[in-house]
């Protein structure tokens, strides 16, 4: 059962104020992830848990200061926007659901995925460094 929206609003705002766009419906998800346009897309699967609050969201905040970034930034909220999250996960191919998690897609293909088990117990700085390295590998100009 979703938490009261008043409780999770700050968890959403922590990302939207960075310019990350929320995908709250199936239609929202299909409109962007279902339309491969040669762009790189980051999808942050948000959640109410401590790993998101203390690690993943701060890590993304740090990573988005990097000079190389995905073309588009999106988030879905696991446990809150249930159908949108399930729809987004359907674009993640064989990568299993977990939250928080972070997917990087290029031309609708997953080119980097960070699972919950790669987030839990780590510092935001370490996670952010992994994200920046992924941005460098996957989001630079195509050769």
């Amino acid at each position, binding site marked *: 059962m979703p938490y009261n929206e008043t409780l999770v609003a700050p968890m959403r705002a922590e990302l939207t104020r960075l310019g990350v766009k929320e995908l709250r419906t199936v239609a929202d998800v299909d409109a962007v992830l279902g339309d491969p346009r040669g762009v790189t897309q980051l999808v942050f699967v948000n959640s109410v*848990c*401590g*790993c998101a609050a*203390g*690690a993943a969201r701060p890590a993304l905040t740090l990573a988005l200061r990097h000079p190389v970034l995905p073309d588009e930034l999106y988030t879905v909220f696991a446990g809150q926007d249930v159908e949108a999250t399930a729809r987004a996960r359907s674009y993640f191919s*064989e*990568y*299993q*659901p*977990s939250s928080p*998690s972070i997917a990087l897609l290029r031309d609708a293909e997953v080119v980097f*995925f960070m*699972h*919950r*088990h*790669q987030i*839990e*117990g*780590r*510092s*935001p*700085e*370490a996670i952010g460094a992994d994200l920046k390295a992924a941005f460098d590998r996957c989001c630079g100009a195509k050769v």
Partner: protein
Amino acid sequence: MAAQPFVPHTERHDLHGMTVVVDTPGRLYVGRLDTADDREVVLKDVGYHDDEATRSEFLSRTLKFGVTRRDAVVILPTSGVRSVQLLTALAR
């Protein structure tokens, strides 16, 4: 100040909330540890594998693609648990 890893729920087991691999005779479990004491080990969002010969492949695949959830909660008697270790420790 040096960066500190985020450690939630300090009043709980050290591995609470962490993705662990639990080795038992005949079955390898992977899931989030909820509690572990001298009576039982409780895991959530659990995957498992029964073929000892292909455990290494199962764990490699799990590290790359994540846990394929098969049970929401698994409760194991501690007496039947050979080991509990972090999934990410196996990647090192």
